[in-house]
């Protein structure tokens, strides 16, 4: 049970000040922009809720929102179990530990535009390994013209890029389980499944919450990688929310509309994340 002590606020104050500076001021600005037609800070007109009405009536918002949910769901369903399996398969001691840690983290360190470039090349049937293999075993694979292939490629790219994050988090969570737990399990002749279910999984709960939320939030605002890989196409098959925002607004430097879209976008993320977070932390109090 935690003690109630309001002096703990002093420990939180630096974080509060720092984040307030870089979050609250910009957020206020976005709200201000969203109800005006802005050309520059001195040339602006009050338009009220016009931008909101326009964006909410735009079918592109609903389309990309739906696509976004399906995509984020796929990402979670594939990456979280795979990440746990990889973390459980990590060597526990010896030279294998640093080697596999470094190799695992490689995809995370590639700048996001380069990630897109790598998969853009490797998926091409003339000069890329995967595209060439798929085509030579008789599959008609082309991510640039076939929406299904484009989807699969973006998804596999995401799995390649981010599963390591889940794995690394879970691995460090596993490392923080004291050895006595395993010794006790060995004395009790617990099965591997029992060890996982009753020792490892409960201890992983904290890091797993972080991993799931991070993957959800990041996949929900994915932009650079699919933009480089497919440019949102073919058609609008891989145009996700962030790209719709950029296309619709920033491309035309239409600040008011962009701000209104941003706020709607933010409200969607806020609601979904809140539901997620509440659902996952709710049994905390019961132990």
């Amino acid at each position, binding site marked *: 049970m935690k003690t109630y002590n309001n002096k703990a606020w002093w420990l939180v104050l630096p974080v509060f000040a720092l984040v307030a500076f870089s979050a609250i001021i910009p957020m206020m*600005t976005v709200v*201000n922009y969203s*109800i*005006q037609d802005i050309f520059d800070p001195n040339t602006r007109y009050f338009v009220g809720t016009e931008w909101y*009405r326009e964006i*909410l009536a735009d079918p592109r918002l609903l389309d990309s929102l739906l696509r976004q949910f399906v995509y984020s769901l796929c990402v979670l369903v594939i990456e979280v179990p795979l990440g746990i399996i990889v973390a459980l398969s990590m060597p526990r001691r010896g030279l294998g530990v640093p080697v596999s840690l470094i190799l695992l983290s490689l995809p995370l360190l590639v700048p996001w535009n380069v990630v897109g470039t790598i998969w853009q090349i490797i998926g091409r049937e003339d000069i890329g390994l995967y595209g060439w293999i798929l085509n030579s075993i008789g599959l008609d694979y082309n991510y640039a013209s076939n929406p299904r292939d484009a989807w699969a490629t973006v998804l596999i790219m995401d799995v390649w890029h981010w599963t390591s994050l889940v794995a690394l988090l879970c691995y460090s969570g596993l490392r923080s389980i004291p050895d006595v737990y395993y010794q006790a399990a060995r004395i009790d002749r617990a099965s591997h499944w029992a060890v996982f279910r009753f020792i490892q999984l409960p201890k992983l709960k904290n890091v797993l919450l972080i991993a799931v939320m991070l993957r959800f939030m990041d996949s929900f605002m994915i932009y650079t990688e699919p933009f480089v890989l497919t440019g949102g196409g073919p058609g609008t098959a891989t145009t996700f929310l962030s790209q719709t925002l950029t296309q619709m607004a920033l491309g035309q430097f239409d600040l008011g509309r962009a701000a209104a879209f941003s706020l*709607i976008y933010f*409200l969607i993320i806020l609601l979904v994340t809140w539901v997620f977070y509440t659902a996952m932390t709710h049994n905390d109090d019961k132990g």
Partner: protein
Amino acid sequence: MGWMAWTLPTALFFVGIALLLVAMTVWQTVSPGHERKGFLPLTTSRGDRLFIGLLASAYGHLLLLALTDWPLWIATGVCVVGMVIIMKWG
């Protein structure tokens, strides 16, 4: 401050939110509330109910803008009533 492009409605909005937060803090210090369960399907403290109410209000306003041509103050009125209900019985 010029670049923040302040307007009267947004200024009032943020002052309102800030006052609300201050009021909640004072209220909690003067007479501490406890987590409880109302008609919402989870145990909530006052702050939780305020957050739920505000988020619901935001969606309420968007819904009105998306589906109808009515003026916005109708949504505001409904949301204030909803807010009171959530705070009291939520």
